[in-house]
């Protein structure tokens, strides 16, 4: 089983990202579940969302404390939240940032990848400068670093279930995936 934790801000689409990813895995014949950090949320507040993917039925209903992957939708959260809390040894980190991991100065033994999801989202007309919709680009990039997730399923999942602008969101995922040439 792989466990993924997303860090974002309320309204950025971290929860939708986790659900689209679960849907992508299920399309592929895997089992998956996704859930947010439970409680009242507000736009702009740090939130977490979670996803489990396995080839066997997922019966567990407890929280995720030792994720295999950490996905950060807003790089500024790195200073505010302990984003790497509990990450497994050998776990991978994906950050939405135009900078390279080195430039971000994230000290870590883990594999850190970056993707300019904000740039891609704005290019595709998703959201605005103040609040770009980065989640689909981010999960597209995620497919490049996670062998259990296929980009075709991610794109299909977005086309089926993205709340709006399905084609643009799917394209954003594709572009983000393609930009991760080094990772694949």
């Amino acid at each position: 089983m792989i466990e993924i934790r997303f860090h974002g801000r309320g309204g950025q689409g971290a929860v939708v990202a986790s659900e689209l990813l679960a849907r992508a895995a299920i399309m592929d014949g895997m089992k998956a579940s996704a859930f947010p950090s439970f409680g009242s949320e507000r736009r702009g507040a740090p939130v977490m969302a979670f996803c489990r993917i396995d080839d066997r039925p997922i019966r567990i209903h407890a929280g995720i404390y030792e994720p295999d992957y950490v996905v950060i939708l807003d790089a500024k959260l790195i200073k505010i939240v302990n984003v790497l809390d509990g990450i497994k040894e050998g776990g991978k980190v994906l950050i939405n940032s135009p900078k390279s991991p080195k430039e971000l100065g994230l000290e870590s033994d883990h594999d850190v990848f970056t993707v300019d999801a904000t740039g891609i989202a704005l290019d595709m007309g998703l959201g605005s400068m103040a609040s770009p919709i980065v989640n689909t680009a981010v999960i597209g990039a995620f497919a490049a670093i996670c062998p259990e997730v296929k980009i075709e399923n991610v794109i299909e999942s977005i086309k089926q279930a993205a709340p709006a602008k399905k084609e643009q969101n799917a394209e954003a995922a594709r572009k983000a995936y393609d930009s991760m040439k080094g990772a694949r």
Partner: protein
Amino acid sequence: MLKSYKDMPSTPVSLQSTEDIMTGNWRTMRPLIDEEKCIRCYICWKFCPDMSIEVEEADDFPTVNLDYCKGCGICANECPKDAIEMVREE
């Protein structure tokens, strides 16, 4: 730092003042007051739901308390002179 059920107060009551909670880090946008346009009507001060616009002395220009300002933008919305601009928090 609470460690045990024994450390809790005898009835549910908060042990911390809300002043200790810096809601300023909720912001993604911050208000910028242009003193050239500002007429010191203090409508922004009146409307701020968080008491985060401050006027230290009479006739001063209003200032934003960035420790608590959540960036809701109500001040910018209410300013009759459009003297307040919401800019992205960097």
